């Protein structure tokens, strides 16, 4: 009886649980989670408390913030309500950011896994394609794609995904090259597992930690991309977004600082929160690197 209790208290923890324990004690990462929760919450439910159309002209132009209680953040150069823009403007940014990161991960992981696992000519071909895509300046290529195929949230997300996957592919390939030599992969092959099963069920789960960290950082990059495209006026013109607010008001920055400052801060805090979470995950998965 006593033997059993001693044994259970030494039970090995799953790596995911261990990572979660580490993450839970990482204060910057928790700040990131809280910050992101506030931003996503405000975007999802903000209009429930403060209704307003971000495109409608409601007041005199360039009303400073904090003067009229109805419009706490003031108005832009046309007299549009900035508070309404701030609350709805995160929608496209967050949606496109998440969708683009998902597309990036799917393309990058698939190509990287095939290249790393099969090696030989498959690896050679896929890596040449990856190098080709790395030569194209990403934002410029995304601009071209969005212009050719008329901007909507979907084309923007796909364009960002198409330009961002090479780094993920390289990372996945490197992980696969490392893991495929390990004994448990040989063991899986020895008991007759097929390639498909080995790639997706044996190696990929073990390659996940660095890929999760990379996915988090990809979300941050995708958000900055979406903001940049909207700023240039290449976003969906029918949807208000933070980047569009900055782009629309940038001619008048010397008359009014607030219409560009608030949306910029919103983008900054969103990406900042995401990268704090990414750093936290990185530390949680690699406890040995923590002192760096």
């Amino acid at each position, binding site marked *: 009886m006593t033997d059993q209790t001693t044994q259970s208290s030494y039970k090995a923890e799953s790596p995911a649980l261990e990572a979660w324990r580490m993450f839970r004690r990482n204060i910057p990462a928790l700040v990131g989670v809280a910050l992101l929760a506030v931003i996503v919450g405000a975007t999802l439910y903000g209009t429930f408390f403060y209704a307003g159309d971000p495109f409608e002209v409601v007041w005199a132009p360039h009303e400073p913030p904090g003067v009229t209680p109805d419009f706490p953040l003031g108005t832009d150069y046309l007299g549009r309500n900035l508070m309404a823009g701030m609350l709805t403007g995160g929608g496209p940014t967050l949606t496109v950011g998440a969708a683009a990161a998902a597309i990036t991960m799917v393309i990058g992981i698939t190509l990287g896994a095939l290249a790393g696992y099969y090696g030989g000519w498959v690896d050679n071909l896929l890596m040449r394609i990856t190098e080709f895509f790395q030569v194209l*300046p990403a934002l*410029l290529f995304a601009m071209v794609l969005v212009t050719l195929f008329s901007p909507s949230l979907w084309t923007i997300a796909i364009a960002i995904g198409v330009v961002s996957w090479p780094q993920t592919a390289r990372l996945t390939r490197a992980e696969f090259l490392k893991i495929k030599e390990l004994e448990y992969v040989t063991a899986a092959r020895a008991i007759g597992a097929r390639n498909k099963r080995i790639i997706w069920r044996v190696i990929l789960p073990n390659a996940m930690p660095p890929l999760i960290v990379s996915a988090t950082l990809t979300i941050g990059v995708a958000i900055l991309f979406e903001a940049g495209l909207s700023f240039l006026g290449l976003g969906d013109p029918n949807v208000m977004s933070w980047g569009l607010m900055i782009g629309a008001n940038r001619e008048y920055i010397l008359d009014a600082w607030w219409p560009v*400052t608030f949306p*910029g801060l919103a983008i900054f805090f969103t990406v900042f929160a995401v990268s704090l979470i990414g*750093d936290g995950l990185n530390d949680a998965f690699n406890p040995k690197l923590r002192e760096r």
Partner: protein
Amino acid sequence: MSSSYLLRRTGYGLLLMLGVVVLNFLLIRLAPGDPAVVIAGEMGGATEEMLESIREEYGLNKPVLTQLAIYVGNVLQGNLGESFFFNQPVSKLIADRIGPTILLVITAQLMSIALGVFLGVIAARKPNGAMSAFVSVFATIGYAVPVFWTGIMLIILFASSFPIFPVEGMQSVKLRDAAWYVQTIDILHHLVLPAFTLAIIYLAQYARLSRASMLEVLGSDYIRTARAKGASEKSVLFKHALRNAALPILTVAGLQFGNLISGALLVETVFNWPGMGRLAFDSILRRDYPTIMGVLFFASAMVVIANILTDISYRWADPRLRGRS
């Protein structure tokens, strides 16, 4: 460095550029609508005559492979087409604007590497010191700020509160006819804010990277040896350690070049810098495809050249690599 290696590397670079040309061609073909109308630009209001001459020039009535051959042949002869909006050959448009872009990108790259590595090396001396904390926080912030917004904030700051740097353009109109050195100083004066804006993001990344890289190197045996034989701290840090820590920094510098050009696009738009990014923005608003494709081609060429230069400097920094191909 063997010349055969350089030759092979250059050949591969040219192959990549050929890929970009083919991609340009495919993009025009894939775009919805009549390619002739696409090339003329939707804002142009092209006449039937113009469309006919475009079809003739690009061979749009011929089979697709012939069209591709004509397109590639034209590019090889330096003919990137005619911009119907600017009413000029695309090659001339780009030739006028590539200089300012290269100046901006290279200045920003050097600025971010020099300052970033310096901060990183100092931080690495005390891994838990205040400088290390600053570098970590600064890197996270630098990564998260949209570059166009940094530029706008700097314009607001320097246009009204501290008017010591010009916030727009590359040259003062009144100095256009001044002596060359006055013009040079004027251009450098205009360069400060755009280059700094672009450098901030990467500066932070280099600081973080070189700190990590230095920490790894500083723990190695040859550093202990160098210290034991009585080398000064400065010599240990900047001579023995930095040279070994430089490889990851070089790798990232090469990989970042494409992103730097993307960033330059936004920065040029914000500061009205007369470069290719500004041209790309103008031509995209007008749907002037020959110009857009030309910019994509030249921007990719800059990345290819930067990659080759990275490879060369890699071998210069690490003699162990020189024997290999």
